[in-house]
């Protein structure tokens, strides 16, 4: 048994990190926040690098790798706060034309009733017919809500605004009409989406831990770096512990692909991403509360991801059921 990353996996991670540093570094991130729209050129670049086709067999023009490699990829995406319906497009590769190459942007109606990046998408999987826009908490994840669907509860004081656009022309032509077939596909995709979401959360947790530690090493108060104070040191240590436990859980779930293990990994990764972002904000003091610091972007995205697919309560129930 050797649970560590293989040399190939390490190389893959290095490669993706370099690509994202180059194509979606800090300046690009801040520009994307200002712009609010999806960068199609970057999307194609990701496609060319195999981001979406990673798990398609080589005969089908893919890279032929598996879930563990996909997890490494999405961990890097989470670190970099890469925007867009990455998971939906990755899952659609090989089914929706253009998805694999990054020529098409594919989004999906989440079981929670939310749809990310609906106006930018070329293809929408699931019933988004009556979706209405929402003022998204995350400036880099535009959201729509499908009234009555999933866990999203209607606000009795604020009825859903009328005038929904018609998204029917973007429906996935390959979407099976047969409800049983559709359900089977959705179940499989829900598993994978949960795991890849957990991977993004892990990357974000690792990144906010790094940001906090870097700040704690250099920012001085009372004549010494704040990282020399135990109160700060212990925040940072807890961040690392949460992240490393989540890492072990997410990687193992990628290897076993067991639904209950995936649910458990999601719980730990959601916890790591949201709590590490909060602690990172705390370590940054007043600066952490500003729009200029990236911390809030990590926290807000972590919140959005935590609502995707499997809810925390459902994940806990799933694990409990197997005890």
């Amino acid at each position: 048994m050797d649970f560590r990353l293989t040399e190939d996996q390490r190389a893959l991670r290095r490669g993706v990190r370099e690509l994202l540093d180059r194509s979606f570094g800090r300046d690009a991130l801040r520009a994307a926040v200002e712009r609010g729209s999806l960068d199609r050129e970057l999307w194609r670049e990701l496609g060319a690098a195999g981001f979406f086709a990673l798990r398609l067999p080589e005969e089908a023009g893919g890279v032929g790798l598996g879930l563990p490699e996909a997890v490494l990829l999405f961990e890097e995406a989470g670190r970099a706060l890469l925007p867009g319906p990455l998971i939906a497009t990755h899952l659609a590769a090989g089914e929706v034309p253009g998805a694999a190459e990054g020529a098409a942007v594919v989004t999906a109606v989440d079981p929670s009733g939310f749809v990310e990046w609906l106006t930018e998408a070329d293809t929408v999987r699931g019933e988004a017919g009556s979706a209405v826009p929402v003022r998204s908490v995350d400036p880099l994840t535009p959201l729509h809500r499908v009234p009555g669907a999933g866990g999203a509860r209607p606000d009795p004081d604020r009825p859903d605004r009328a005038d929904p656009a018609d998204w029917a022309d973007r429906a996935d032509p390959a979407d099976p009409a047969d409800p049983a077939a559709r359900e089977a596909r959705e179940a499989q995709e829900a598993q994978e989406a949960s795991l890849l979401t957990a991977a993004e959360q892990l990357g974000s947790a690792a990144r906010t831990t790094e940001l906090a530690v870097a700040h704690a090493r250099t920012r001085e108060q009372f004549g010494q770096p704040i990282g020399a104070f135990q109160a700060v040191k212990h925040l940072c240590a807890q961040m690392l512990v949460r992240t490393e436990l989540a890492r072990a859980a997410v990687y193992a779930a990628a290897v076993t692909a067991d639904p209950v293990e995936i649910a458990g990994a999601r719980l730990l990764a959601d916890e790591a991403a949201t709590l590490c972002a909060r602690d990172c904000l705390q370590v940054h003091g007043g600066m952490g509360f500003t729009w200029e610091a990236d911390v809030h972007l990590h926290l807000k995205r972590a919140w959005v991801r935590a609502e995707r697919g499997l809810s925390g309560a459902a994940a806990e129930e799933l694990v409990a059921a197997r005890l």
Partner: protein
Amino acid sequence: MELAYTEEEEEFRARLREWLAAALPGLPPKPDPLDWPARRAYDCGWQRRLYDAGYGHVHWDASPTQRLIFLEETERAGAPYVGANFVGLLHAGPTIAAEGTPAQRERWLEPVLRGDEVWCQGFSEPEAGSDLAALRTRAVRDGDAYVVTGQKIWTSHAEAADWCELLVRTDPDAPRHRGISWLAMPMDAPGITVRPLRTLAGSTEFAEMFLDEVRVPVANRVGEENDGWRVTMVTLSFERGTAFVGEVVACRRVLGELARTARKNGTWDDPVLRRRLGRLGAEFQALWRLTQWNVSEAQASGGVPGTGGSVFKLRYSHARQELYDAAAAVLGPEALDLGREWNQDRLSSLSYTIAAGTSQIQQNIVAERILGLPKGR
């Protein structure tokens, strides 16, 4: 990244499973937890049987993967855990194996593996707990022996032990980390007084130890004179790095029992409690995966476990306490009955964030040695 076991490893598992199935029914009944001589006899008897069957060495000589399989299978079968042999098997033994001379390894390792000799750990002192390097117990050289005088405290299993891994100050004038030596002290030497201390769980599992001119042969020093701090770091890395690994498997079993009890007594219908157990399930599953990760790392680097052990110990010690708090929630008012095993375990779990380095000290270690944050003044 893989979690599969090789064919040889699966063969090892199959043989062990078969052996356990045959060996366990003949086991004597569990001793009274407060009766130390009986506990020693029970634990050593089990270790002897493992030794005779070729599994005595598994805690430090076998491959780390074999050790994981051993822990999984013994726990699954409900076999006894190391008990009174904890120090000898899990950190004094491995320290001697890593740092001792051939003669020392010859003298001390076999008896530990055979279950003939039990060890205890004499590190902490009344004025030196978290700040271990502040220890004052003195050892003065007299011919071929050290004459040791001082006091130790919290010495687990001292009543039952034959040997003590003892830290002493051999050079009072040197900087505090540089004047320490690591000795193997025979517990029957004249001048040793052991006074049991009662834990909050009611047992006398640890003790105070008074040392009055105890003669310890110089040949019993492991490592160089005044180089004991380095040897101590090796001991602590075993103690924090690998010693608790087996308990994760045990906690997972307890959690399963908790769920069964909850289903029977109706508490399972409470979604808050059910979800709390679900979260603990995810937690212990992840801790086991983290263990496999750490073992893979240790296997690759060979030998002494790294600081990953502190990450594990921090999270595990809290998870264990949460587990037994959840047990109390499942039991309801029955949680007040000390006759039930879980309630004793709940009391014992309170020591986990203190013993083997408190959570505060572990967080300092993670922050300074892994994250590279500056030391405070």
